[in-house]
């Protein structure tokens, strides 16, 4: 079982302290919701967890994965890696070749984009692009998902599909960290609040 331990983590961006002294733990099956006002460091924290940013202080410790340091993870940032010149099917085939073995048709079905498989990325709406980007999650089947505002520009049905996909992942023992502003969060998710009056001791020192 994979588990994550964040120990007195600090983040500095452009010389400015974003958060410091942040600590929480999570294990497989858990969902952590990151909440806080704009600029509180939710995206930065996700990039720290993904290994894209080095911590200014403290540590991110993963245990239980196959590797010693960082487990296989899927990071979905706020930008959608969607190309105008590739069809939906070509995107999925490329991502599958890159990081997984999943079934393209099944993955497309999981996010409700099966009818769009032959459509070029440039013709997708913002919500459809987001659905396509999130379909990566169903293809890669990594134990850890890091999601940055995944529900932005999704319709109700899209949010429901995403919530169902997250539920299935947790049932398999997957760990999810998600930054969100949505009032209705995931069922029995734990909340980590970032920002100035954060109860988790995440305030800027």
């Amino acid at each position, binding site marked *: 079982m994979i588990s994550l331990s964040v120990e007195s983590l600090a983040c500095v961006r452009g010389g400015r302290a974003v958060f410091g002294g942040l600590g929480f733990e999570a294990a497989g099956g858990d969902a952590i919701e990151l909440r806080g006002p704009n600029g509180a460091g939710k995206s930065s924290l996700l990039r720290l967890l*993904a290994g894209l940013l080095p911590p200014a202080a403290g540590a991110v410790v993963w245990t239980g994965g196959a590797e010693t340091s960082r487990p296989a993870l899927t990071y979905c*940032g706020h930008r959608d890696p969607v190309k105008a010149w590739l069809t939906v099917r070509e995107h999925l085939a490329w991502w599958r070749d890159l*990081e997984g073995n999943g079934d393209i048709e099944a993955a497309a079905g999981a996010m409700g984009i099966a009818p769009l498989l032959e459509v070029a990325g440039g013709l997708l709406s913002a919500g459809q692009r987001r659905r396509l980007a999130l379909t990566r999650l169903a293809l890669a089947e990594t134990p850890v998902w890091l999601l940055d505002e995944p529900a932005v520009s999704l319709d109700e049905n899209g949010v429901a599909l995403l919530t169902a996909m997250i539920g299935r992942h947790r049932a398999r023992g997957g760990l999810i960290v998600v930054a969100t502003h949505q009032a209705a969060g995931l069922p029995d998710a734990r909340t980590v609040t970032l920002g100035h009056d954060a109860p988790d001791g995440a305030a800027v020192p």
Partner: protein
Amino acid sequence: MRPYLATFRRDLRFAVRHGADTAVVLAFFVVAVVLFPLGIGPAAGTLAVIAPGVVWVAALLATLLSLDRLFAADFEDGTVDLFLTGRNSLLLIVLAKCAAHWLTTGLPLIALSPVLAAMLHLPAAGYVMLALGLLLGTPVLTLLGAVGAALVLGARRGGVLVAILVLPLYIPVLIFGVLSVDAVIHAADPWPHILLLGAALLAGLVIAPPAAVVALRSAAE
């Protein structure tokens, strides 16, 4: 190998579907070379002397023009984050992208070079050596260019910056490329220069990808 072949194929597909991007680079190559006879007159003797240098300089500049498509779009839309957080060797992904870039930039430049050389009255003895030099030199231009293209990610006016960063690094390739053609025209031994170009290619293959990887990582921070 599958992730790297998939990346290579994806970049080739881009070049095919956005044929205009490749065409612009080749058109620039031709126009840049054509300017020289217009600027210094059509005297065959003069043109023959400068022909190797002109073709090589135009090839450097054309390659430079194509560098921004190597990483910029993938950086903008978060695909670089996907590379960085994935489980694949970033080194091999960079190499796969460089291979696709060379195949869609360097190789067409080489194919065009005899035509342009003929227009500049390059002596017949020089053609094979010019193509051979470009065959060894253009991959070096791609590899060094990848480092520059990765370094300027996120910078404003990256195109100008990459020229300043990369062109000085291209100088050795230019010198040995031109010297090899000059040598064969003047019945001297061109092989030391060709061997040095080969050495530059081997060194570039070893040094450039790790440098580009470091630059990509720091751009993503």
